[in-house]
């Protein structure tokens, strides 16, 4: 199974997002790199709006991710509630 990843800027806004990713994706591996955090996950990785909102303590639209996003890999599927990265092979 191939690995997908998402890389986010390391800052106060992304801290709860990263925590949420870790909670929702137990198989994910978090790599702290200079000024950024790269999260690798085998097969798929899901970001859930609800988890992020709980950790952030405010309303959060998934598209806010764009502000602090550095890079990603995999096919993207976005709905109001989730953003999913996956490889089909």
């Amino acid at each position, binding site marked *: 199974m191939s690995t997908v990843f998402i890389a986010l800027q390391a800052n106060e806004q992304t801290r709860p997002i990263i925590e949420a990713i870790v909670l929702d994706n137990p198989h994910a591996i978090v790599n702290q790199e200079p000024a950024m955090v790269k999260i690798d996950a085998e097969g798929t990785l899901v970001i859930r709006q609800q988890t992020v909102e709980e950790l952030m303590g405010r309303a959060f639209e998934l598209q806010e991710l764009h502000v602090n996003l550095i*890079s990603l890999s995999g096919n*993207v599927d976005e709905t109001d509630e989730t953003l999913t990265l996956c490889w089909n092979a």
Partner: protein
Amino acid sequence: MDAKVNRKKLGLKEKYKLLTRDLGWEPSYHAKEKIFPYATYEGIKIHDWDKWEDPFRLTMDSYWKYQAEKERKFYAIIDAHAQNNGHLNLTDARYLSALKIFLQAISPGEYAASKGFARVGREFPGVGTQVACQMQAIDEIRHAQTQIHAMSNYNRFYNGFHAFAQQRDRIWYTSVARSFFDDAMSAGPFEFMIAIGFSFEYVLTNLLFVPFMSGAAYNGDMATVTFGFSAQSDEARHMTLGLECIKFMLEQDPANLPIIQSWIDKWFWRGFRLLGLVGTMMDYMLPKRVMSWREAWDIYGVANGTALFKDLARYGIRPPKSWDDAEAGIDHMSHQFMLGFYQWSFGTCFHSWIPSDEDMAWLAEKYPKSFNQYYLPRWQHIKKLAEAGTPFKNFGVAKLCQTCQLPTVFTEPDEASLLCHREGDYKGEKYHYCSDHCKEIFDNEPEKYIQSWLPLPQLFQAPNFGDIGAWMAWVDLKDGIDNGDYVGSQDEANFQAWRGLATSNSNAQAQGEQ
């Protein structure tokens, strides 16, 4: 905040539909082919443009909102950088050579990409595609502007930043990036998407931005980290657009497969050649290094590329033909480029230098298969020449590849001690290439590439006719100031002096400000 309006909020999918599809219309008094005349000549068949979907479903209203936020973040940091003598926080002013190359070669490429996306946004008949291309055209011009703006803070204090706009068209090494974008922009809209949107953005851009920006962070360059991350936040969308576009084209008609495969073969190699310059920045130009070019390639090239092409295999796509030769070149290219830059440094608008013993030990550790065997003896000899007061300058200027326009510095894929020579004849003229792949690209469209403006053969034609002094004036390169070895340069002297002033009680304001 705007006053709250009591209205049901639209879902993402519904909003995307309203703000893309519903903006389109069927022409009533003009034929569609007349409105979109470039949509078919490349041979790509599209049956239903509505099948196109932006996976992020970003609409123009949200786009402006998030882009504005990115700009606010960017300028807050750029202001802080300027107000706090941010340039003195660099690990070393050697680092600036990487930025000078970036400004001269890459930032004008962002501007070219903007023009390209503005054009294909007009030429594609699908509304979803038009909107996505419009956003990307605006992104790319933002990247060019924020990069130039961020680096203008260095231009106040250091040499070599002053003439990037002119040098983009005139100095020799920038033609590599320029020809890459010119090649894409003079192709049809579908090839442009595969060239820039897929091969460059999806397959290769991580190698440009991610390790490079981490390198900037490591080396105290807050300005570059900021423009890099601000640009990169758009790249994720561009990459997704590139991937979406290729899947869409492949799903529309099986006849599209061979055309797309040939573009992937071509543009992977074109991009790979161009990004080799980044390898040199990473391995040689960062005073404090994050990872080697080889390590970056293993993470972002091999791991990611393998996953991608495995995924696309269901459409019949295979990895680019040149993949194995690219892999073979990884352990050599950064050394080959830096040796070239050093010996031709009389003609570069940035400084190069001989790596220190410590640097060479690091390179040997990172490149166990190549450095000590092939490159260390050369650097040691070059060091000996410099110590003897006869620094190595190679006035036999380089043979350039007709396709990628790089100096032909590469060795045979299976023999690292022999330069790779490829030549061909077309309509009675001789042409040279750096590799089998660049020759094949030429051979597929010779009428295009015979027009290449190769800066070194041009040096001997009008208007400079081989006069190096006249050429330097023409490219706005000040001999002894902008070029040559970093050791002994004005940049080196100023950085040391200013940093000394900044950490003592004498007048800390930069005195040599230009």
